[in-house]
């Protein structure tokens, strides 16, 4: 019991000791297998579902009248849509990182957060995947990017990063989905067996795919899970690397830079953990999961945030330095314009939210304050969005020929799509929390019962 991993995942309240595995099942199972829905859930769900409808309307109007309803123009032909895409993809990184890499690194403490981190990944990638489609001038031809036999006798243009994107994001989504689902199976079986209502039994039964928990099942399961972890690990790096190619492959000052891949990956994990925290903190409160999502978790994630945040900081400095070191007048002007140009205030806001505020996490006192962590997480969520805006828009609005320079102003429809996508994300997440075990039951029990097992897992 004194083992640190155990402490990490579970700290019983002072008044009573660890009541044993049954109690865990009881505790987590009861979150889902209950007719009673928390009032907070209903309120929040109502709000975000309305938001999702706004998104729906924004998209319908977009398809009806064309992307002219957005603020994009020439030279700034990419606006909010691409910013949001990169932002969401980045957020999607935490899940895989936690479940795959931390698994391989034997970080047992991950086990009480990996389940909903993975779910978050799925939903983030879902939101992300939306934008490349709707930002097209003629979305109804999106499938031309995919290689398939057609009457035109044409293939995609393989040198274009957008084609690579399609594969990278597609793979990432598939793997994450399978990974997440396989992790769910034993718990779904638990629900199947505990469900009282016939319908619930059948539904969970089907999803459990006939899991009986025989030793043979478990052996297969462990192997598959480990394999998938192995598969998913490179994806954590590859996806955002490929996304960063969208920019580095281009020749635009502020885009054309070799530091982007590592910088984007770090940034992605940064925002990913920020988002995990943004979700975990309220939820552990609403669902009284403080025993499972402990201060130790928050502390670790805060540290991870800090670490990745420092890498990002380094990248910013490096970008500026290289721009001047290169001696390329266009690169230099781009940086000066980024810092002191018409969008300069955004850059400094980005520095504040993304670099300065997170430094709070150095102090252990701050890391002990849930509120502080939550605020930092929010600030990073915002900061990372600003970062993408600065990269995409500010680089484009003043590139080579001054005669072509122009400003970019987001329209109400840009905002509707951004906020709508956030609403969609939360909606999906709430549904997940209502119908699936948000914390891996069997893993919790496993680790609590036999700490040394987790050391092997």
């Amino acid at each position: 019991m004194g083992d640190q991993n155990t402490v990490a995942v579970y700290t019983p309240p002072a008044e009573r000791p660890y009541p044993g595995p049954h109690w865990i099942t009881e505790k987590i199972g009861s979150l889902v297998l209950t007719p009673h829905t928390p009032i907070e859930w209903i309120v929040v769900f109502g709000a975000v579902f309305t938001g999702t409808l706004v998104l729906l309307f924004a998209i319908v109007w977009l398809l009806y009248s064309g992307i002219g309803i957005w603020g994009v123009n020439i030279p700034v032909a990419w606006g909010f849509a691409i910013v949001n895409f990169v932002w969401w993809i980045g957020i999607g990184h935490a899940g895989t990182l936690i479940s795959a890499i931390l698994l391989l690194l034997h970080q047992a403490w991950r086990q009480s957060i990996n389940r909903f981190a993975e779910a978050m990944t799925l939903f983030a990638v879902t939101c992300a995947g939306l934008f490349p489609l709707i930002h097209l001038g003629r979305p109804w031809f999106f499938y031309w990017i995919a290689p398939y036999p057609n009457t035109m006798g044409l293939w995609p243009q393989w040198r274009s990063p957008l084609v690579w994107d399609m594969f990278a994001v597609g793979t990432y989504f598939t793997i994450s989905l399978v990974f997440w689902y396989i992790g769910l199976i034993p718990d779904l079986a638990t629900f199947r067996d505990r469900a009282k209502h016939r319908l619930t039994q059948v539904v969970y039964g089907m999803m459990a795919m006939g899991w009986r928990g025989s030793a043979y099942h478990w052996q297969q399961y462990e192997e598959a899970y480990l394999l998938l972890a192995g598969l998913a690990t490179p994806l954590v790096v590859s996806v955002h690397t490929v996304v960063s190619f969208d920019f580095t492959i281009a020749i635009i000052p502020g885009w054309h830079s070799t530091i982007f891949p590592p910088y984007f990956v770090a940034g992605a994990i940064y925002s990913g953990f920020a988002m995990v925290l943004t979700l975990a903190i309220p939820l552990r409160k609403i669902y009284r999961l403080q025993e499972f999502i402990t201060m130790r978790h928050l502390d670790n994630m805060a540290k991870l945030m800090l670490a990745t945040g420092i890498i990002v900081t380094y990248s910013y400095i490096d970008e500026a330095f290289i721009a001047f070191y290169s001696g390329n007048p266009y690169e230099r002007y781009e940086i000066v314009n980024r810092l002191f140009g018409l969008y300069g205030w955004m850059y400094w806001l980005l520095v504040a939210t993304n670099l300065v505020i997170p430094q709070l996490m150095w102090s252990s006192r701050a890391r002990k304050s849930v509120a502080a962590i939550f605020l930092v997480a929010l600030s990073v969520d915002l900061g990372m969005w600003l970062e993408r805006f600065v990269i995409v828009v500010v680089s484009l609005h003043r590139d080579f020929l001054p005669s072509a320079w122009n400003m970019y102003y987001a329209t109400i429809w840009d905002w509707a799509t951004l906020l709508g996508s956030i609403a969609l994300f939360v909606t999906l997440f709430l549904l997940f929390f209502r119908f699936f075990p948000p914390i891996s039951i069997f893993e919790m029990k496993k680790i609590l019962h036999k700490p040394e097992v987790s050391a092997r897992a």
Partner: protein
Amino acid sequence: MPNSNFFTPSIGRCYSKNQTMPQIFKRPTNAISRLTIFGGVFVVAAVAWGWASVVYSPFVSGEWTPFDQPVPFSHEHHAGGIGIDCRYCHTTVEVSPFAGIPPTATCMNCHKQIWRDSDMLEPVRASLSENRPIRWNRVNNLPDFVYFDHSIHVSKGVGCETCHGRVDMMPLTWKHSDMHMQWCLECHRHPEHYLRPRDQVFTMGWKPPMDQDTLGRRLVTEYHIEPAFKLTNCSICHR
């Protein structure tokens, strides 16, 4: 075996009073589930195949279906039977992108004398007298972003028949080829498979005297046909 017993997640049992829990699924379910897993593959394949066969079918490209026309003009009779040259009616085929649809006057050149009062030709006479053009239904129609030029093809030894088929056997005209971009590209990539001597361009049912490819290759050099990497430039057909 306490271990596996512990790991069995169906802990529900421990709580339920009666030790035997009712099965949710009957045994056949296993079969069904297996079926769905493997069947899924076949379903997807079937859908893909079905879709493809529709897209490639005449149902979409619309060949082989005779078009109704205000006047039931028969190429079979005029071109095949009487043996009128294509260019008698399609006058601009050698000089213009557009092969040309004959003005009413052309019809009346002959039909002033023959079939003067057949009801079939009433619309033609009406057109001339009321000076209102006949509005034919278009048989071969390319999208408006495709710029096909009859004159260059004809002058480089592409026969009418190559694209339009045995018009001399069509009572009512129909579309002979699917005219998918693929189909155009096939010839632009390998002209030698399709070329014929200039003097045979307007012949129907022409057979190559020798092996088509040897002839084709000769004609390619003779007629200065541009190389495939130029003939397949987008701007050759799209502007």
